[in-house]
């Protein structure tokens, strides 16, 4: 049984003001195996974030079935950790309180909360900043808190929606390396949405290329280049060329159609 099973997912947004419907996702079928690091790659507006939100339970598919761990997704839940594009931390809580928020909601005492959260503070390299508020930390540090918060719930899958898009190039590289290290250490299933071919190839062991709206799956490519991946190596560039060709083919097909 796959960790995530998407069966004939269709999503239609009704644009009430213009009185028409917008087909955003058109018949998505995808299996994601446990411990996979899957990158959903596609241009802006292709519905990749919508697909992630459907898995997270934030949005409902118009039709089709979404199964996580064999169970139908109906609402958000702590079995699916989400890392948002913006860190989306509670600004009134310190780093450690944000990370341990899930435990607080479960009514666990403060001492135990902090005890368990410290492990994740260390994992994302924030020791010394556990009592800082989000406004006192950089974007990269806040995003680390966001990742630690998702990991602490020990979810069966982690869903990430372009979490590094707002970071500068150097911080982005560091965070990508750390995420891969965390994934290798903890062996979790990650679905990572991105529009960057490079990012997808650095991170994923499976890359799902999506088409422009209405979003369909163009192709799912397995990519097993050993890690750490050298982004200047011929193998990396071969893979990049292949992915780019897939995307370009798509644009040409669209250009001819119109």
């Amino acid at each position, binding site marked *: 049984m796959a960790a995530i099973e998407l069966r004939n997912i269709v999503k239609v947004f009704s644009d009430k003001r213009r009185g028409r419907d917008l087909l955003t996702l058109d018949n998505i079928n995808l299996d994601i195996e446990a411990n996979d690091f899957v990158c959903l790659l596609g241009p802006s507006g292709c519905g990749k974030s919508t697909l992630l939100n459907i898995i997270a339970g934030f949005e409902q598919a118009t039709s089709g079935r979404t199964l996580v761990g064999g169970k139908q997704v109906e*609402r958000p*839940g702590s079995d699916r950790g989400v890392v948002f594009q913006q860190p989306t931390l*509670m*600004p*009134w809580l310190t780093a450690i309180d944000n990370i341990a*928020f*899930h435990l607080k909601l479960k009514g666990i005492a403060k001492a135990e909360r902090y005890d368990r959260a410290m492990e994740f503070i260390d994992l994302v390299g924030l020791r010394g900043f556990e009592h800082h508020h989000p*406004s006192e*930390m950089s974007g990269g540090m806040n995003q680390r808190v966001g990742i630690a918060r998702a990991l602490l719930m020990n979810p069966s899958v982690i869903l990430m929606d372009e979490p590094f898009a707002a970071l500068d190039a150097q911080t982005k590289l560091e965070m990508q390396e750390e995420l891969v290290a965390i994934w290798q250490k903890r062996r979790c299933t990650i679905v990572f949405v991105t529009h960057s071919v490079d990012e997808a190839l650095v991170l994923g062991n499976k890359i799902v290329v999506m088409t422009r709206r209405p979003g369909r799956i163009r192709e799912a490519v397995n990519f097993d280049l050993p890690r750490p991946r050298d982004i200047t190596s011929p193998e990396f560039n071969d893979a990049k060329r292949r992915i780019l060709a897939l995307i370009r083919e798509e644009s040409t097909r669209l250009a001819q159609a119109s």
Partner: protein
Amino acid sequence: MTSVTDVSPARPAFRLTRAFGGIERLVVPALLIAGWEVFARSGMLPPALLPAPSAVLHALGDWVFGFDETTQTYSGHWLRDALASALRVFGGFALASLLGILAGVAIGWSRLFEKTLEPTLQMLRPIPPVSWIPLAIIWFGIADKPAIFLVFLGAFFPVLMNSIHGVKTVDHNLVRAGAMMGANGRQMLTDIVLPAALPSIFAGLRIAVGSAWMLTVTAEMVAVKSGLGYVLWDSYYFLRYDIVLAAMISIGLLGYLSDLGLKAIMARTLRWQQTTTVQGRAG
């Protein structure tokens, strides 16, 4: 062209203005008061119509400490009058805060309350609180109650509006994050929406405390026989404009202090909002 060396001579000057910063802000009030004193003593207006600041200070001093009975029956009674007004402000403000936050959060949070409660409240809102004075007097008589009722009316709507706004504009993604971490409906309200709405709620409370003082004084002029507003109005009848001015100063001062107190509570509660960076704190 500016060079690096151009910057250094400016630095001592900057320190100078900082050292005199406290004095600087006193310049305008000092000039105003001096001008007023000179004008009042020049005899262009009868002293009874425009008392000099020194006379106002004298009246205020006697009202507070009662040293020479220049303020006659009020001599030494300031604390009692101020307390009477402050208690009305506090009573009405506390009631308005409690109900304003409750109703505001309910309306902002639930469509049911928004549909049932909000239209009525929004229709009552444009009615000026002072226009309730006749009804307040027939309902509650001449005492603390009509004053507290008026203060409540003046303070309630700012708290209500800001609470609704605060709850409605909570970042949608924070709610999603809460749902992702398994918050139930009650936790969503108490652990996410309420803290997120606090800055806005506090903004409402600060406007409300200002309205509260305004309405206490108004009520005391018309419907109550004690308090700073009553002294002000009573002194007007006896042509004691020095006491009128002393009362105005007292009201201004107490209003300012209430806001300062509220600001201190707000700074403590919303400490997380202060945007100091890691570097800023270390330096």
